[in-house]
């Protein structure tokens, strides 16, 4: 558990953040320049700040005390590649591992285990300048784990990688994060990545947090943060799905969501049984009748559990919350199988939508991609 209550000033940015971050992966989300990296640097102690930072009941910083980074035990994956060019991959991994061992620190991560998990065996004797972008990102993340950190800070660790390389890394990250019970802060401004990896979410703007909570809930109300000048990307919902089968000929994976089938494009076969998908609210259309012949392959049935008028940047739109669990018609039972659709207020009025009504939710397969796409 990481608790912080800090203030700092750098350039135009005034950082003022008070929150606590539990075990598991927490997304730090916000437009560029809002202070995400500054917050990470303050947590790491690389940027001076006032206030208190406490990690697992150890005071890292408060009035009159300041623990420097090398004593804080923070695994920090920087936005840029910071492997040591004069050491091999093995040398880079051992750098933190040996020092942690010498200091008698351990979170139970053995070097061999990390090497195996990140599939680094073939790279061990190579020098960083011979690695591809994806390989070097993997080594960066693995190296930070080898130092047995109490806290993991990942600053856009997948930036600059193409979809295929991201697809290589996300499964690693997801499993590592799940198995290690240390707080992890994951900086990103990409909804899909967050949906796939993060349990909780912090939304930041101009140096302060404006929203925080479970990823599914926060993603659904992201529109509130967006203004005319700033966009937080598309709001949407998080779907927990399990893989039924993979149709290689059509590059289509068939998923089970709340007992209903969802078809999603995926160039490669998913490596895990359970998937999380981000479904943008604007990509969902609604129908009151059973739709006939059309190109949209996904027709999910559910019931309306909420209707909200949107304002600000989304004026003229209505958010419709739909529960996909047929048994729960009309009753909001948590977030698990709920999706949100943004439709125009005019359409909402014409259809006469109201709470409790059964609806068909239409989702284009082309709009959905798996974490591995």
């Amino acid at each position, binding site marked *: 558990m990481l608790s912080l209550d800090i203030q700092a000033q750098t350039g135009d940015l005034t950082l003022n953040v008070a929150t606590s971050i539990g075990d598991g992966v927490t997304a730090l989300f916000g437009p560029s320049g809002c202070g995400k990296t500054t917050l990470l640097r303050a947590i*790491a102690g690389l940027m001076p700040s006032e206030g208190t930072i406490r990690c697992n009941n150890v005071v890292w910083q408060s009035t009159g005390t300041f623990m420097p980074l*090398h004593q804080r035990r923070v695994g920090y994956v920087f936005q840029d590649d910071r492997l040591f060019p004069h050491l091999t991959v093995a040398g880079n991994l051992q750098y933190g591992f040996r020092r942690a061992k010498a200091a008698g620190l351990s979170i139970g991560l053995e070097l061999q285990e990390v090497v195996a998990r990140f599939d680094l065996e073939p790279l061990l004797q190579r020098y960083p*300048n011979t690695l591809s*972008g994806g390989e070097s990102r993997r080594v960066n993340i693995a190296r930070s784990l080898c130092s047995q950190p109490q806290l993991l800070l990942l600053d856009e660790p997948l930036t600059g990688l193409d979809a295929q390389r991201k697809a290589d890394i996300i499964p690693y990250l997801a499993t590592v994060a799940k198995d290690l019970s240390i707080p992890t802060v994951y900086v990103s401004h990409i909804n899909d990545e967050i949906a796939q990896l993060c349990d909780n979410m912090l939304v930041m703007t101009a140096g302060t947090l404006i929203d925080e909570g479970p990823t599914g809930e926060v993603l659904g109300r992201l529109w509130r943060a967006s203004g005319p000048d700033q966009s937080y990307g598309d709001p949407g919902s998080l779907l927990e799905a399990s893989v039924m089968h993979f149709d290689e000929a059509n590059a289509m994976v068939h998923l089970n969501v709340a007992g209903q089938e969802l078809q999603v494009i995926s160039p490669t076969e998913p490596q895990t049984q359970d998937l999380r998908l981000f479904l943008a609210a604007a990509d969902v259309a609604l129908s009151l009748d059973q739709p006939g012949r059309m190109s949209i392959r996904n027709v999910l049935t559910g019931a309306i559990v909420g209707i909200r008028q949107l304002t600000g940047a989304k004026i003229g739109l209505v958010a419709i919350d739909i529960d996909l669990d047929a048994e729960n018609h009309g009753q909001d039972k948590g977030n698990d199988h709920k999706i949100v659709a943004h439709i125009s207020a005019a359409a909402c009025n014409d259809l006469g939508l109201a709470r409790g009504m059964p609806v068909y939710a239409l989702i284009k397969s082309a709009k959905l991609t798996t974490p591995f796409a």
Partner: protein
Amino acid sequence: MPLVMPPTVLGFYLLVLFSPDNALGGSWLALTGTTLAFSFYGLVFASLIYSLPFMVQPLTAAFTQLGRGPMEAAASLGASPMDAWLTTILPMARNGYLTAGVLTFAHTVGEFGIVLMVGGNLAGETRVISIAIYESVETLNYQEAYILSGGLMAFSFVVLLGVYQFNRQFAMSLTPRGMR
């Protein structure tokens, strides 16, 4: 200071300092039995003082180029500042030392004023190539001047080529493949 001081002036002061009447020259005489002025050791000492400042610039450039990144990364892996410096900055700046060393050496080889002041021009003892060239020209021995000058020029060229080649290779080895 030696960076901007005229070599002849520096040489003069060093000559005074090297004289057996002075503390430095006196103690050297007592220790070794020879004077520091007009000796090979005196030359080395004077060249060192004159040329060392020229090492500072390439070294500063090498350290600046590395930035705070490696130190921060090392600290996040549990290395104390001293440990981090010794294990990252020191080895990563290795091209800086080599470049600085070679350039300073080449610079010293061509030095004239300070060498003449401190070393005099004793054949077989303190006569260096650049002074030998000067003397050859003075005595109208152009043949020897050509040979010596040609040799120095070839030497300079080889040094320059070597430094550039090494720097390029080194820069390549530090750059991630995708950025080349």
